């Protein structure tokens, strides 16, 4: 259980770090933690099981909408909403996974199905009045612990860090469990895995369910932090691409590579935004695209691979 202990220690250190940051630093901290959590959740299915999803916004969006609608219409505390969101995300992941994997779709076909399901969800939500339609839903600002709205940014830092810790712990647990080896076998060679007696479909469905549940945890926190959600921001294709991007740049399939991707890229985005002062919208996405292509060409194992190579090469 030493890795879990280390994880706990890291989380405690980060909690102390968050309290020392200035307000803007705390904002970046929250963004890094949330994006990192989405990327890690994506990695369970995309990296560990090798099934590349282009629709993880579906789970984040489902989580955000579930908790927000429960809170606005039924006065259910977002704390409960968080649990319901995870269950809905897990069910969606299992449902999509079961339907798709049973039909033996993989590779680019899987990517296209997930993309289409997420886009369809976006258009459905845009047309349903109870969900605010294309205008989205605003959450009235009532700072209270029970409302999942905190008086300071530090509260949200801890909330985001908490979700990141949960996602990290689950990733770590999978990595060291039988399931982790099952997923690895499926990723490396599906036929050999099946020949060894592994239920390939079951393994992938479980990965999709866990991945969906973890991604859905991020939705409610984002919604209560920003106090506004609309289909484009939580269900849109850009969010799905972000999840994949951080995972690929950070290091696909490695345990914490996707988090590293978010740790490097999100502050870079904020820095660029500050430097350019709002001119040249979308410049950070150009940088992402270039880094993504360079990483694919020069370091297919991502930043995490570069880092571990550098450590391994260090003279002892």
């Amino acid at each position: 259980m030493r890795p879990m202990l280390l994880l706990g220690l890291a989380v405690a250190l980060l909690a102390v770090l968050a309290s020392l940051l200035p307000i803007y630093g705390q904002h970046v901290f929250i963004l890094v933690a949330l994006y990192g959590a989405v990327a890690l959740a994506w990695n369970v299915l995309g990296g560990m099981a090798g099934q590349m999803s282009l629709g993880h916004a579906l789970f984040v969006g489902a989580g955000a909408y579930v908790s927000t609608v429960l809170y606005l219409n039924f006065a259910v505390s977002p704390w409960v909403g968080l649990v319901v969101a995870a269950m809905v995300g897990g069910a969606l992941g299992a449902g999509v996974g079961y339907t798709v994997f049973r039909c033996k779709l993989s590779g680019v076909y899987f990517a296209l199905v997930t993309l289409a399901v997420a886009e369809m969800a976006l258009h459905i939500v845009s047309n349903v009045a109870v969900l605010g339609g294309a205008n989205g839903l605003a959450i009235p600002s009532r700072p209270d612990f029970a409302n999942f709205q905190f008086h300071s940014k530090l509260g949200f830092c801890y909330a985001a860090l908490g979700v990141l810790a949960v996602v990290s712990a689950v990733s770590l647990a999978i990595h060291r469990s039988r399931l982790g080896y099952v997923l690895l076998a499926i990723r490396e060679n599906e036929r050999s895995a099946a020949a060894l007696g592994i239920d390939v479909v079951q393994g992938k469905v479980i990965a999709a369910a866990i991945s969906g549940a973890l991604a859905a945890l991020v939705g409610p926190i984002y919604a209560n932090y920003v106090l506004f959600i609309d289909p484009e921001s939580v269900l849109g294709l850009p969010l799905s691409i972000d999840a994949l991007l951080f995972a690929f740049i950070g290091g696909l399939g490695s345990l914490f590579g996707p988090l590293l991707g978010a740790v490097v890229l999100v502050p870079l985005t904020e820095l660029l935004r500050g430097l350019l002062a709002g001119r040249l919208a979308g410049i950070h996405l150009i940088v992402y695209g270039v880094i993504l292509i360079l990483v694919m060409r020069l370091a297919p194992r991502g930043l995490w691979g570069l880092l571990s190579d550098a450590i391994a090469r260090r003279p002892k």
Partner: protein
Amino acid sequence: MDLLPLLPQALADGLLLGGVYAIVAVGLTMTFGVLRIVNFAHGDFLAIGLYLTYLGATLLGLDPYLSLFLVLPLVTLAAAFTYKLLIAPVILAPEHNQIVVTLGLSLVLQNAMLAFFTADLHAIPSVLSGNVLRFGNVFVQAAALIASAVSIALCLGLYWFLRSTELGRLIRAAAQDRDAALLCGVNVDRMYLLAFCIGVGSLGLVAPLIAPFNYVSPGVGSNFTLTAFIVVVLGSMGNFVGALVGGFIVGIVEAVGGLVTGGSINFIITYAIFILFLLLKPEGLLGGRRL
């Protein structure tokens, strides 16, 4: 409200839209069928073509139909560079890496256009803009008719090229079995380059033609990419006739669906059809026959 009288109009709109979808999808199916690479930046080259047409109109005062002679070579050139710099190095890489490279390219292109041209919508006027033909109760834009007719002709022309010319035969050989083609002395890399230039370059022909009745914005490409994927899957990946049939189906579903349901509900129908096809018949309507 009685919608029946409007149905012929919607059908006509759908057919015209379908012709354009078909040619965009034919380019995608060509790059997929020959190179086995799924190009997520496909539609962005169409957007580049539209912006070049826009520049031709604003800087040089060219009518879209004239700037065609500028846009077609430029987009083809861009395709050639893209192949050499980005696609060729990953041609044997795992599928994940190929998808991610084209996704990265799409991010760069889309946001470069956003940075240069801002998110404003632009219309590109032409001598034919506002020229409307009337067939009974059906009104048709002349420019849309031309675009659709040229698109269909181009689809059939490319089909003939691949089927009946020596060069087409070489491309098909490279598509069917890379190693066997190499052993027979086919310059596979050259054929890949050619196929990519035709597949993407054809967008340089489509862009000026649809410019008179379309707006230009940095995001227009990704809409076309998604639609092209739907069309290609409907009509079977790598199948030209399939792309043509799929294009008309999607065009009509969008136009008639928009008439019946209004709003963006018709997109839900299109995506639902797409998902059902992927699940139940991933080989598409016309089966997996490649090129």
